């Protein structure tokens, strides 16, 4: 074996080792959560950890469901995030399309204004937003949770960058074929950007999925709770039932994990479909 072949082999080994270690580090907490969710409460208290699942998942789930309708919360979260994602994808790509493909006055300043909203901490807008929602009697509604964040700056930024990669000729072609501007957008630009839309969908879904304080304040009835709100409700002054919480966290991870697994390829190929260069 020649020198560089040997070096290559060492390098390959190190690379694999690194990937493996990281993959394990990423999976251990999730696996542990899974195990914890299957242990009965008293074994959970048992201070030596174990690495193989127990059998109490269903009981734990039953007691969780007894305390709060968690399945309903999952559904609420999925519904809210789903509707939000669809609407926001549409809105962001519309704005992104305009920024990428049209010339108009104050284009640059407007764009930077939008990007600027990226730094707003959501937690701190809660009070005025609640005030508004209360005024228009939207508290405890899903629309109050969905609408304010539809104009997502990251979404607009990414779609602008990606839409830039659509050849102008494609749009002109459609224009000559007699398409109106809006038809050009939804019949040509949108379908051509499919993988970017998938990537954007993941990002937006994730954003809505993680909202915590805002829905906590807006939502009133337990039937409307989203996952984080329901989770927060599990941690009161009384004893915290970690078995239930672990079941809840496990269930909370599933929908997004599925979405992520399904759209992952598109995420990689779509997120930077255009270039990030200015």
């Amino acid at each position, binding site marked *: 074996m020649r020198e560089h072949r040997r070096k290559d082999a060492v390098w390959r080994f190190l690379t694999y080792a690194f990937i493996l270690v990281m993959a394990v580090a990423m999976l251990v907490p999730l696996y542990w959560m899974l195990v914890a969710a299957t242990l009965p409460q008293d074994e959970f*208290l048992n201070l030596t950890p174990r690495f193989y699942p127990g059998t109490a998942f269903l009981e734990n789930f039953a007691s969780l469901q007894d305390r709060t309708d968690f399945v309903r919360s999952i559904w609420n979260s999925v519904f809210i995030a789903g509707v939000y994602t669809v609407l926001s994808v549409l809105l962001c790509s519309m704005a992104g399309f305009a920024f990428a493909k049209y010339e108009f006055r104050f284009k640059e300043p407007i764009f930077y204004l939008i990007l600027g909203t990226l730094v707003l901490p959501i937690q701190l807008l809660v009070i005025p937003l*609640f005030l508004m929602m209360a005024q228009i009697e939207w508290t405890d509604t899903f629309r109050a949770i969905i609408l304010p964040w539809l104009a997502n700056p990251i979404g607009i930024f990414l779609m602008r960058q990606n839409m830039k990669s659509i050849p102008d000729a494609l749009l002109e072609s459609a224009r000559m074929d007699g398409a109106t501007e809006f038809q050009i957008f939804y019949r040509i630009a949108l379908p051509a950007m499919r993988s970017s839309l998938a990537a954007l969908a993941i990002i937006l879904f994730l954003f809505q999925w993680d909202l915590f304080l805002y829905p*906590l304040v807006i939502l009133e009835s337990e039937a409307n709770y989203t996952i984080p709100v329901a989770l927060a*409700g599990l941690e009161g*002054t009384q004893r915290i039932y970690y078995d239930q919480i672990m079941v809840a966290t496990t269930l909370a991870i599933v929908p997004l994990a599925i979405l992520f697994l399904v759209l992952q390829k598109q995420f990689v190929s779509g997120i930077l479909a255009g270039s990030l260069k200015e």
Partner: protein
Amino acid sequence: IGTGDREDGDESTDVMADEIGGWGWDVAARSLQLTADEYEAENDATVEIEEFGREAMKEDLQTRLSSGTGAPDLAMLEMVDGPAYIETGAIHEISDRIDDAGVYDDFVEGAWASLSDGDDIYALPWDIGPTAVYYRRDVYDEHGLEPDAIETWDDFMAEGEKLPDDVDMLNLPMNDLDGVWRYQFRQLGNQPFTEDGAVNIGNDDSVMIAETVKELYDRGLAATLDGWSSAWFGAYEEGTVASLPSAAWMEGTLRDELSDTAGDWGVYRIPAHEEGGSRASNWGGSSLMIPEQVESAKRNRAWDYIEWSLATEDMQLLMYDEYGLFPALETTYDADVFDEELDFFGGQAARRVFADVAEEMPSYGFSADTPEVTSAINSEFQAMINDDKDPEDAVADAAQTVADRTDRDLA
């Protein structure tokens, strides 16, 4: 179009709404559910009680109070939070209603302070937390500890030394050191702020408390488990922590969560700081209030329900019995339940201990700046334990922090 005040319709009718909603957390909410059921049976009205987690409810309620809309018709209010909430003007004043009902004197005197602003009262006391030390009778017996021999913290520590290394005498919850500090501070008859508003938490008593806490820790007598954590419950279940200075409301939790240990518990009064000193204090307690934003018909109904729930002996005792919420309604203390010899406490009439404490407990003035005190004490006491900070410095620093942040003088 106009600006400024717009006169609304008439305010003071006796009309009562048919339907009201109330908020509470955990056990409290469940207790209210009990009285609500009774109330609905007797009256032609519905009372919807919503149960929350503690933090979740505070955040939600606060947003609604400060935005002047969306609050429930009545809600639980912890005494600690009382003044801060009252100061915002978000809570409905009920002095007249209390006068009309003539129930002021039925409640433990010490409970009113944090629910009033001068002569105006904003909430009706619900439960209080007369303090005592719960202890694992079996563990004490096994290692020859004498509860009766404990009068002062020195005695407490001396007895504690009898325990082997793997058993701690008590727990100092790192997430609730301010609670530890506060019940002792109150026990010694202190107020956090002087009459003229100066910060008083740096006084000698406070230093003494800090020293006691630190000594407990330094002598290896204390575990440091987060309160209410699994490990914390586990330790009391296994008996690796032998004593639990706490309040009357802890009884319910112990019964619920540690049912296996029934019969192994006992109660004695908290140690004094010096021979003959006070052995009574209070930890926690709550009330019910009506937000100012609630319309009058609902207010009326809410008050009617509150009075029914809190100023009626039957109802208070019902809640005490079911969920261990120790009544602030002093007139109940003559009831038989207080003298019952409880199996859970190995036949001890433990509730009488709490009732006695309740009648002796000094009053304590919470204020709008209580959160600052809480945060400063917690932070400094943590530093004292974790980073071996000098108790005197810790207390002084805490006082200074509070003074700075609230723009007050040091006492």
